[in-house]
């Protein structure tokens, strides 16, 4: 019973916080361009407005097009259940849940790709083929880096990994973890369609990837798709924050005070990581599409070298 309540609390935290993290990244980008920028809470207003509107569905579209927003949202919400916000919220850990997490996200992505093909518009097809290429290029580095951490933790359950990393203390000063951390940063940029891979703000035919797949959606459906993209981004940020910047070992007291402190530290780390993502977006340019394999190769090498360092040291 307590486990279920824990799960619900953490689902709520992630679902409520997700649009704000998106707003934070946008705000820091605007700040770097000397603009005022939209308010941090802008995405909540957008979502409310979109939910009130009707959605237009093409006549040629099949049921896949209508079902996809719900499938994408439910897989993302299920994935949000699997990532504990703090180690003090043990959300029904079971072995292999990190693999389930990444493949739930992949399931949502698969449906997004076929729904973009469904309406028969050229942009949708282009976007989904590009998205499929990017995700298949980035998948090996995801697997190698999570298995490296899994080997060190001796488990594939996220909670166990988090506990192990909290015991390590300061992972970023160790060769294995700094390499996997850098790989994970590239993975976040690629998975959430951030700038070196895809520009979230563009609607130019030649460059858009993620936006091209959402082009046919409107109203409620669009709201669900955008919301689940924001939730997915927060899930990945949460995972990286909890694995590589653990703070739960710093909390001196237990009980509800400790729990609140740990959630506050979690917010702090999420803000830090979203600032890092914003800096990465500001300081790079969007790559030519056929340069993305170079970036993916670099991410793979980072995670593989991390694995190798673990192997050499035998830790």
């Amino acid at each position: 019973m307590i486990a279920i309540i824990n799960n619900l609390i953490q689902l709520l935290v992630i679902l409520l916080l997700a649009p704000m993290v998106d707003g934070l990244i946008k705000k820091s980008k605007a700040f770097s361009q000397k603009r005022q920028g939209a308010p941090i809470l802008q995405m909540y207003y957008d979502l409310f407005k979109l939910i009130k509107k009707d959605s237009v569905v093409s006549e040629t579209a099949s049921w896949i097009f209508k079902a996809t927003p719900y499938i994408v949202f439910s897989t993302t919400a299920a994935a949000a259940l699997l990532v504990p916000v703090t180690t003090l919220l043990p959300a029904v850990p079971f072995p292999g849940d990190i693999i389930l997490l990444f493949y739930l996200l992949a399931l949502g992505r698969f449906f997004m790709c076929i729904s973009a093909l469904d309406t028969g518009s050229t942009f949708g097809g282009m976007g989904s083929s590009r998205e499929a290429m990017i995700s298949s290029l980035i998948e090996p580095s995801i697997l190698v880096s999570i298995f490296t951490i899994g080997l060190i933790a001796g488990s594939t359950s996220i909670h166990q990994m988090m506990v192990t990393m909290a015991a390590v203390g300061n992972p970023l000063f160790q060769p294995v973890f700094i390499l996997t951390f850098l790989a994970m940063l590239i993975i976040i940029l690629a998975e959430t369609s951030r700038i070196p891979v895809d520009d979230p703000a563009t609607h130019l035919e030649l460059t858009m990837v993620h936006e091209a797949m959402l082009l046919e959606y409107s109203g409620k459906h669009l709201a669900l798709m955008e919301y689940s993209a924001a939730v997915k981004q927060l899930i990945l940020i949460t995972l990286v924050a909890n694995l590589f910047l653990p703070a739960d070992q710093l909390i001196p007291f237990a009980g509800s005070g400790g729990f609140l402190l740990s959630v506050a530290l979690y917010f702090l780390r999420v803000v830090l990581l979203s600032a890092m993502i914003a800096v990465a977006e500001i300081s790079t340019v969007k790559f030519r599409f056929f340069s993305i394999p170079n970036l993916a190769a670099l991410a793979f090498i980072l995670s593989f070298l991390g694995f190798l360092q673990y192997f050499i040291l035998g830790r």
Partner: protein
Amino acid sequence: MDSYFDLLSVLILLSSFILVSHKRIKSYIKTFRIQSALIALTAGIMGFHSLASEGSLDILLVCAIIILLKVIYIPRLLHKTYGNVEYKVEKDFFLNIPLLIIICCALVVFTYFSVSGISSLSADHINLQVVNSFSVILIGFFFMISRKKALGQMIGFLVIENGIFVTAMFSTHGMPFIVDIGIFIDMITAILIMGIMVVQINEKFESININKLRNLKG
């Protein structure tokens, strides 16, 4: 202490991977400068350690020479040489970049299996640091044979030198001062000669692409 050296050896290895993944000569020079700065940092930490424990200034002097020579002077010299040769955008490498990176990764695995057999290096940390720095040497060699332009090959030579220096430093924790100075003087001579050669090649062949060296010139 050892864990900092582990971290630095990994970062030096990483910088050579980033070097391989770059396409332009200016970014080669920038990455070389970063790598040299990391090496200077390693030498600096080692130098302070030896100053505290033995009271010798040797490694700190070497660190100062690295900063002067590899972080400031040589990159500037390379920029100058680059400014003197004709600018031409063309593909600079024989294989595509993902393949290059994966071959370099195979080099690291190869180094691991060959170096870990050396019994005197069996201590954990030294083994890791030597594997990483030895792979820098091999990646430097590979960088040299994978680039077509003479300037890229000069950078490859410098990376090999960096790798040799770092390997020596990690496995011995400070070589005799006179040996280090000898290596530096050799290197600076080689770089000066290569810089002049590159300009000469550019004047004769109107390109620094070594593929064109096959053409006969009177």
